[in-house]
């Protein structure tokens, strides 16, 4: 199945000055009851955005109308905790195409890539520059080029290279899907099963 294709993200950014943002903060468990992929964006960072009565908390950055954009900038170890892909769906549905941090938790990174939400890991120094730039000028434009694997702060002419695994890069640029790739391996998987030794994993 063809997915969203993504080659460049050029946008203002929203700075979220927090480290160790876990997936329970991104989308609390009580919002995981859906059986489809819709409606998660409105509950993104629910308990940081809204109080118990549903009123917006004015101090939370997503409620500050000055900050807008497709890029979320966040502190070290973003997406730790639960494996819930709903976290990636929530960020994506809210309107983010990329999350920039100095470190990502493994499962979140995979989930994000599987949803064409680009996790961009930068150095702590560059992250600091990004925060400073956007804090000072919310209209600053950040440019992410997936083909070239670069992220730049346009008004400062600062650019940094980022890593992305080569397979996922191809998938995101072209909108390819893992299931299609794996399903095309069917004969190899069947041959593997047939030729296996020492398989005590299931009682036949």
């Amino acid at each position: 199945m063809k997915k969203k294709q993504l080659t460049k993200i050029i946008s203002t950014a929203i700075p979220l000055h927090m480290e160790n943002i876990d997936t329970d903060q991104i989308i609390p468990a009580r919002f995981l009851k859906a059986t489809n992929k819709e409606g998660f964006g409105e509950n993104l960072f629910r308990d940081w955005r809204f109080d118990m009565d549903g009123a917006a908390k004015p101090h939370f950055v997503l409620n500050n109308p000055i900050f807008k954009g497709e890029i979320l900038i966040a502190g070290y170890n973003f997406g730790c905790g639960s494996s819930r892909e709903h976290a990636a769906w929530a960020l994506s549905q809210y309107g983010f195409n990329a999350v920039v941090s100095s470190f990502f938790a493994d499962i979140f990174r995979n989930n994000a890539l599987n949803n064409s939400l680009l996790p961009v890991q930068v150095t702590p120094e560059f992250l600091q520059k990004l925060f400073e730039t956007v804090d000072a000028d919310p209209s600053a434009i950040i440019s992410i080029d997936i083909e070239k694997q670069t992220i730049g702060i346009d008004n400062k002419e600062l650019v940094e290279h980022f890593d992305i695994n080569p397979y996922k890069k191809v998938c995101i640029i072209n909108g390819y899907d893992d299931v299609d790739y794996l399903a095309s391996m069917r004969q190899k998987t069947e041959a593997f099963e047939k030729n296996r030794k020492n398989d005590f994993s299931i009682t036949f």
Partner: protein
Amino acid sequence: MHKPKTLFEKIWDSHVVFQEEGYPAVLYIDAHLIHEVTTPQAFDGLKKRDLPVFRTNRTFATADHNVPTKDQQLPIREELSRRQVEALVKNCKEFGIDLWGLGHPNQGIVHVIGPELGITKPGMTIVCGDSHTSTHGAFGAIAFGIGTSEVEQVLATQTILQYKPKTMNITINGKLGKGVVSKDIILYIISKISAAGATGYFVEYSGSAIRSLSMEARMTICNMSIEMGARGGMIAPDETTFAYMKGREFAPRNKDWDKAVAYWKTLPSDKGATYDRELVIKAEDIEPMVTYGTNPGMGVKVTGTVPTEQDFTTSSEKENLAKAMEYMGLTPGQKMIGQKIDYVFFGSCTNSRIEDFRMAASIIKGKKIASNVTAFVVPGSTHVAKQVEKEGLDKVFIEAGFEMRGAGCSACLGMNEDKIPSGKYCISTSNRNFQGRQGPGARTFLASPIMAAAAAITGQITDVREML
């Protein structure tokens, strides 16, 4: 002579179906555990693609995250939860997967029932749409949590795309002190290396202190590997592993058992095998632990104090502490002992097995919980619940003032009705003290079952060693 291999490398290498240059490995998955929360969208994907489940006999289903723990025999009251559980029932039926749903004797938390039924075995690859899948590594398996897109991949193909992680060996040698149990080992390790300290690694735990642990104690350690960011945790199989497994419903039998054991004995890391990172810990350095903050790395020994700004060097660490203090309502430098608690939760895939309840009951027996405390016990599975009753432990808990519940994930993640009220303190045998994890505004102290038992009696954080 072959290059010496680690336990991880042996299992990984024997499951690579195919690997293209520059691509991740296509890894065969021996067992796929599924539950109601992370699968409905994956089944929808299969329907859209018009694909069947590739290997139904390698897919095991239960309902755990979103089920009530009270009145489990009745229809689920909460509509969205009911619909999600019903979707699992419908999908399993449509795709030909056996389901151990509510009311089934095998129902329970996926990571409790896998080992208890003998589905989890050494040498396997196991995945589940749940980060605590690392639990199963206690048997010498590669087990890790995945997202829903990956659940769909495994349902459709019994394979998953994975880059090989780095390996880390954590050796814990020596003898554990009085009142120190496996939960303390893992909380200690995480407090030392941080909530991101093992990200990118698959961790093997070894050493004499690990060898002396029961299987259930080993599961607690592997379970929380994800809390330091590790892809998974594992422990080499040994006689303790085989003794635990023998005779379980899905374990090999007769000649197959002998063949299996012979193979499993080849799995431990070869002499001379190397890891990308090594860490050595002395068991004697570990004391009963408790967390003070909002991630599992924010833990201290129970006799310790909440850190102060001076204990940290970077401004972001200082800021993390300040934010955690604000949320937790604690003061930097305060003693942990004596901190009051309001709730006690015994449960979760970390500590809800029979040994956990035995050790907690040994502290509680003949005593009453403090008048300011609400305490409840949620067994990890229906089998565990039955065993608790068989051993009369339920009476011990009830007489002390605990409420006994049915099996499920419950207040570990506050997805069902079992939530800790805002602002209240809960000492919990679960695995995460994140903000709002146990309910919006809830404040969590993670600790071992005996530490939680001691706190239940006194109504405050207590050094359990004084009760032994």
